[in-house]
């Protein structure tokens, strides 16, 4: 009985806290560097950004279409850290988002915007296509087709 209870508790904690991790830019750079031939499609979004929310399904389609390829879709939320429990995690659950979701754990917008891309104004949605050789940044919304062709034509 006690074991059953512990298993239940573990399952509950796991399922309710597993979805959104905090991520610094150092973490992200490390992940890219260790990714070998993996191309990362990193979408910067927020729960309050309506065009971002509207294009999330396109990223899900891209993820599913590339499951067997060295492609990873990462959704990096720029919501305030204080909104993690109240807004971001419930949003991810409600929309049943399967891609890896993070909340950017950086204080200084001034610094991190430049570091992600020098040309970025800070407007979202924005998406970075990156692997060890290529780094292409787009301050725009993507359709499903555009995501597919941008990934294909990466060089």
């Amino acid at each position, binding site marked *: 009985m006690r074991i059953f209870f512990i298993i239940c508790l573990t399952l509950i904690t796991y399922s309710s806290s597993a979805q959104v991790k905090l991520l610094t830019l150092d973490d992200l750079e490390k992940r890219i560097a260790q990714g070998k031939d993996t191309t990362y499609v990193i979408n910067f979004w927020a729960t309050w*950004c309506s065009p971002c929310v509207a294009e999330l399904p396109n990223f899900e389609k891209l993820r599913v279409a590339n499951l067997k390829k060295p492609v990873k879709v990462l959704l990096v939320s*720029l919501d305030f850290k*204080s909104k993690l429990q109240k807004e971001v995690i419930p949003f991810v659950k409600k929309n049943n988002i399967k891609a890896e979701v993070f909340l950017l754990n950086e204080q200084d917008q*001034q610094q991190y915007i430049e570091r992600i891309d020098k040309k970025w*104004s*800070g*407007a979202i949605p924005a998406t970075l296509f990156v692997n060890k050789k290529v780094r292409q940044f787009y301050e725009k919304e993507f359709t499903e087709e555009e995501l597919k062709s941008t990934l294909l034509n990466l060089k």
Partner: protein
Amino acid sequence: MKNLFLIGFMLVSGFAIAQTEGYKVGDVVKDFALKNVNSKNVSLADYKDAKGYIVVFTCNTCPVAKGYQERVSALNSAYASKGYPVIAINPNDAGTVPDESFEKMQALAKEKNFSFPYLLDPNHIVTKQFGALKTPHVFVLSKSEKGNVVEYIGAIDNDAEGENPDKINYVQNAISDLSVGKKPAVTLTKAVGCSIKWKKG
């Protein structure tokens, strides 16, 4: 010869990029006439006694812009009488986002008691001249013999959430510098905002 051609090409393409990217710090701004929420046109030249302007691209719907509404009002209260009025411009297209309509702008200005003009920019003409890319996006201008010169581009402060213990009031600081005849110490900042809702098609 080949090198010369290359340099020429780089200059031309650099120029073309500069043309599409909007104003940089130091550029002279072309005046405009845009419809205010009271249906009268507003131009920079209307402000005969102004020493400069705080041009704020903002809108009805962006949560970040909304979070800054009171701070924009406070800037106008603090600086209009000192010669730096706020001119707010909505860069968004109501065809793309219905809540950005002129009527909704009027309602917002009334509800929030805007003490500054809130202008419509149909077809994004002024938005593109400035090179505004998001809301909120601020351009501080100073009046000079050359015309109205861009002195600062970027964010109002570095405290979107209102909880930063190391808050820096970029726009206030820029105007403090300008009003004592100095160039702003910080001329370019970045912050997260909402993309502009461009007209479709």
